């Protein structure tokens, strides 16, 4: 008993009380900013093996970006990564950061289905499915529920069965071998339900986008409610994304 008390005392307060306003330090790489400086655009595009950079105007698609920072090292005058971790959005297009933009990533509240906030604002149970995920996004999703980030305080938890859940959080580029299982899990969830893509593998296929072993056709028939970029996304990105989707005020 005495030992237990000592342990609790020595570990102290561990939870982050305000998940909205944590300041992360460089070299953590969050939302990028692109200056209007003139650089060799072809070289800039070529530096990214994920094809996340495009021109006219110069932009970075965070749905493809691995946040490796290689472009910022090659063109420091053009690209810098801020430490803004609130980068999830419910619109795929909002993940694209254009030249000169410094505003936070926005949420389009008009396209959120009314049922989502009506039903899930106080309690949300999610089913995680990994379809070729490399276990990094899975580790960070797990970390969301530990004593530091404690997502459970908002009533957001992961469940064992699709039947008990309100939606799927998908990681991985969707391997051919997992397509059927993923479809069965999605069909097994009662309405209303949400579909969340977590990590760039899930959003765009990531480095596996051109692999012959993946099949992303299932996504043609599913409306995605939330895109959480990152490779893997930081737990703070994940939690803030889910909160922004499901509730008006926190």
């Amino acid at each position, binding site marked *: 008993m005495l030992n237990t008390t000592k342990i609790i005392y020595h570990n102290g307060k561990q939870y982050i009380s305000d998940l909205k306003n944590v300041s992360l330090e*460089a070299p953590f790489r969050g939302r990028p900013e692109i200056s209007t400086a003139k650089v060799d655009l072809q070289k800039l595009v070529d530096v990214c093996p994920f094809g996340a950079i495009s021109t006219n105007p110069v932009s970075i698609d965070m749905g493809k970006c*691995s*946040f490796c920072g290689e472009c910022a090292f090659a063109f420091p005058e053009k690209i810098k990564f801020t430490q803004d971790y609130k980068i999830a959005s419910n619109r795929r297009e909002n993940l694209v950061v254009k030249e000169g933009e410094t505003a936070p990533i926005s949420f389009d509240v008009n396209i959120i289905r009314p049922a989502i906030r009506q039903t899930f604002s106080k309690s949300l149970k999610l089913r995680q499915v990994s379809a070729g995920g490399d*276990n990094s*996004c*899975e580790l960070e999703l797990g970390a969301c529920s530990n004593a530091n980030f404690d997502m459970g305080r908002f009533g957001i938890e992961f469940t064992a069965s699709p039947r008990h859940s309100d939606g799927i959080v998908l990681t991985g580029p969707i391997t051919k071998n997992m397509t059927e299982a993923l479809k069965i899990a999605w069909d097994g969830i009662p309405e209303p339900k949400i579909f969340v893509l977590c990590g760039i593998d899930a959003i765009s296929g990531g480095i596996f986008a051109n*692999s012959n072993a993946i099949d992303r056709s299932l996504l043609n028939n599913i409306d995605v409610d939330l895109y959480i970029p990152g490779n893997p996304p930081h737990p703070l990105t994940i939690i803030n994304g889910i909160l922004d989707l499901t509730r008006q005020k926190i």
Partner: protein
Amino acid sequence: MIKSEKIIRIKNQEPIELKKIPVTDYESFTGMVLEILKDENTHCVSYYAYPDSNDLKFIMAIADDANHDIIVLSHILKSLDKKKLASLSEKVFALHIFEREIYENFGVEFINHPWLKPVRYAHNRANINSQINDYPFYSIKSEELHEVGVGPIHAGIIEPGHFRFICNGENVLHLEIQLGWQHRGIESLFLEKKHNFQRNLLAENIAGDTVIGHTSTFVQTIEALSEKKVPEQIQIERAIALELERIAIHTGDIAALCVDAAYQLGANVFGILRTPIINFTQHWCGNRLGKGLVRILGTHFPFTEDLKQELLKILNDFEFRFEEMAYSTYRLPSIQNRFEFVGIVNKQQAHLIGTVGLSARMSNIYRDIRVSHPSNAYQKFPYETVTVEKGDVYARFLLKKKEIRKSIDWIRNVLSKYKFDSAQTEKPNYQLLLKPNQFVISLTEGWRGEICHSAITNDNGELINYKVKDPSMHNWKALELSMRNTEISDFPINNKSYNLSYCGNDL
């Protein structure tokens, strides 16, 4: 020590000309392999086939731990030959997984193989008609027995795999694990992606829990093929990152085991103890799991004297809280009662199935690449391996704690003796030419065990083969054996005590 003109001995990360690997007929190949593997200090680290013009060329690499080198042998199956070979697994069971992989990829039938089934249903498998949903599970016809199927999607936040138990009441007679759900075509992508930076990023995504392990094995493979020298400091930095990865994941595993034993305090405290370690990795390179840190021939994030001071502080704080929590946890009767004598794989079984890394050391087998085939960092700062004896869940639980302590000591030793200076490092360089017609094998002791990458180049110095082997490939069999005559309710603690990789196996 066996010497013969039919074999060649090379060192870890030492390239050799492909034509210097002696190619023999299958019969003498078999004879040599059986002779070499009689020695307990040897084990096969890789055995695979690749198309060589119209033929199929086989390469086997056997680590000789006592002599600190790797024996390489080869044989060829001509295009006109029948695709049938006598199985070696019959005599050396540890080879079963390699033969299964060759069978799946190229349709070579191994006669008398005890378990010739697909490994991962790769997209480019020989028999494209075989389907992942029709896996030929072993079954027993009996009215008293029942089967339990779990997966591919599991109850927690975890990768997919299918487990099929045959049970007699609560007791598991047999477990068969079917993988392949995670197959992303990694090995073909290494060849399809022509730029070394793309490959570097691909290596980072092989297994997200072993970022440093797989990426440093990859860069060492490419660097060896280019014959470029990497600054010593970079090599040491990679080893520090590797040990931090080990500390972080082992701590998380200990927490996960406490969860399954319903020990809340341990689950929470060990759970949060992982955070300062991975947060340090983020502070160092911007990513909690180390993505972005390891790059070919250099790094964007050199280790500095400031980082050294911070790391020492974090390790001191970590160690105090870890030891305090461990003191209570490992003496707790309910933990001991839950973990002891459960899921035993004894030394003899471990040798038979050829486990590596933590899964070998938990059965008292001294198998550790850092000691037997050390890279430069571990030559300069030697690591002393630890083992435990019993091979049960408690042994794995205990070994994780011991390895964390060892890793902390090793890092401290390095930090106290080495002076870090950013000027001693270099920026990454992806524009390198690979030497033509070479073979190289690179081994690293990741937190799960030995990671093995090997590569072959052609006349133009292009990669024509890239082979990845995660330690899980060997160790999944250990989990299956652990479950024999174990209660099915003990499966979670067994599974978590190994924490094997699905994507590392499926590639």
